[in-house]
């Protein structure tokens, strides 16, 4: 499964970047924008960057395709145009996943 890199508010101060929602933080930053930038850099090799607000809610999910195409499942898009945007759908999926895991 391709990696999911989360940017979330640290318990004390600042922002953390971690691979997996509950994993130990890989890096810690004072400001969110630096954390997001680092997460995107990590995500460029393929995966999802999941950005949380300070209250924990997911504000944005970005999909980065692997340049080498080494995903286990290479999903081929159906040629239909939905009124929903891809980023909104991914945000919804990550949000439901988080709620299900917590519940």
């Amino acid at each position, binding site marked *: 499964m391709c990696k999911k890199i989360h940017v979330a508010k640290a318990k004390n101060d600042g922002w953390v970047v971690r691979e997996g929602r509950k994993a130990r933080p890989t890096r810690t930053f004072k400001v969110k924008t630096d954390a997001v930038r680092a997460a995107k850099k990590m995500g460029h090799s393929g995966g999802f960057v999941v950005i949380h607000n300070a209250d924990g809610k997911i504000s944005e999910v970005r999909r980065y395709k692997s340049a080498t195409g080494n995903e286990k*499942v290479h999903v*081929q898009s159906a040629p239909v145009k*939905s*009124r929903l945007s891809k980023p909104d759908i991914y945000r*919804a*999926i990550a949000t439901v996943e988080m709620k299900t895991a917590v519940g």
Partner: protein
Amino acid sequence: MDNNGNVFINCPFDSEYSPLFDAILFTVFCCSFRPRCAYEAGDEDRLNRICAIIKECDYGIHDLSRTELNAENLPRFNMPLELGIFIGAKRFGGSHQKKKHYLTLDTEKYRYLKFISDLGGQDPKEHNNDPAEAIKRVRNWLKSHSDGSMPGATAIQNHYRNYLVQRLNLLIENNLTEEDAEYSDTTSIMEAWVDFHLS
């Protein structure tokens, strides 16, 4: 996979059949193929558009399990018609069309011989109206046409169960209800779900 990976799904689009349709659609995504179907065709110039979609598909899944009489006591001929077009393209088309492959599904293995006996000698697969069985049949058939790795049938059945558990909440998060959701919405959500969880 030695070609475009487009899979034409020929099946009814009623609510009674939708558990099977969704299961087949989900499996096609999980197996790294691209689902196509008559939903893309719209109402205008429909037959020509369906033919164009079939032309673009190297694979076809044709479910003949719902050819019984409809509410007006008339038989449902769309599925046999589209199967006939697919077979015709394979039989009489150019060299690329001749490479088409298709899977025929029905509720029971040889039931089709009672209403479309000219297909005798084919090897249809039965799904017993069970989405889990449909997943297994479709996955194993696609695997026989792919060199790539793909999840096993049991894994896809488990993922599909998880997807169904989350489905309603996914619609709500996208400000949709079951009634509002169109084919393009549910397909996009399903496709992204498979990408998020399996890729």
